[in-house]
């Protein structure tokens, strides 16, 4: 299940939705807005999305995750618009009979979302400065992959 929404992500709903009597393991990942990035304070984040293509790529990622791991339920929810400190910008939940698969699929999905989905983040600092995040290079992109 793929969702792109400008409302706060209903994490409890996502978690309930991946519950499955065939599954012994559910893994939920939440990406949330940090108060600081590299020592710079953040007031809020704003996400822009090329929505039809983002839906398309997210659906492909879900299909690929289902091919690679025996997962039963899979939800990827990405928020767009303004997201305050501590709020979730992305939620990924998978359930699987065995926990190693749920962890692996969840981690692969969030890594892939960050690399491949046409969504962009703007950081707004408390003094009003706005900075679009466009990773500079492969090296920087690899750094980003290990961040948040």
């Amino acid at each position, binding site marked *: 299940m793929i969702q792109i929404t400008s409302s706060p992500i209903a994490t409890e709903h996502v978690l309930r939705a991946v519950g499955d009597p065939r599954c012994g393991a559910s893994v939920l990942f939440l*990406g949330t807005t940090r108060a600081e990035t590299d020592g710079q304070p953040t007031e809020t984040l704003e996400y822009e999305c090329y929505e039809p293509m983002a839906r*398309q790529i997210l659906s492909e990622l879900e299909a690929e995750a289902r091919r690679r791991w025996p997962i039963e339920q899979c939800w990827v929810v990405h928020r767009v618009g303004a997201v305050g400190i501590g709020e979730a910008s992305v939620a990924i939940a998978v359930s699987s009979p065995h926990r190693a698969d749920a962890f692996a699929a969840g981690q692969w999905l969030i890594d892939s979302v960050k690399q491949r989905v046409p969504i962009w983040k703007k950081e707004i600092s408390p003094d009003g400065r706005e900075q679009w995040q*466009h990773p500079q290079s492969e090296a920087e992109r690899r750094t*980003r992959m290990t961040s948040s």
Partner: protein
Amino acid sequence: MNVIVLVFAEARVVIGRSSIEVALPSGASVAQLRREIGQQFPRLQSLLGRSAVAVNQRFADDATTLGEHDEIAWIPPVSGG
């Protein structure tokens, strides 16, 4: 032919519009589109060089040829998640 190119994020803000119209010879490729955009918006050349181009909602390589009715998008490096 004239194609419409959707633009996003920093490119959208610098250009001040969410799409641009670009005149190209008919049957032009993504590479030609990139050159034309780079000439129109020299301030965005560095960002353009790091960007992808999508045609009909799929990432496209430089050799892909374009038609007037294709949905074309300039995809700056993504930062979702």
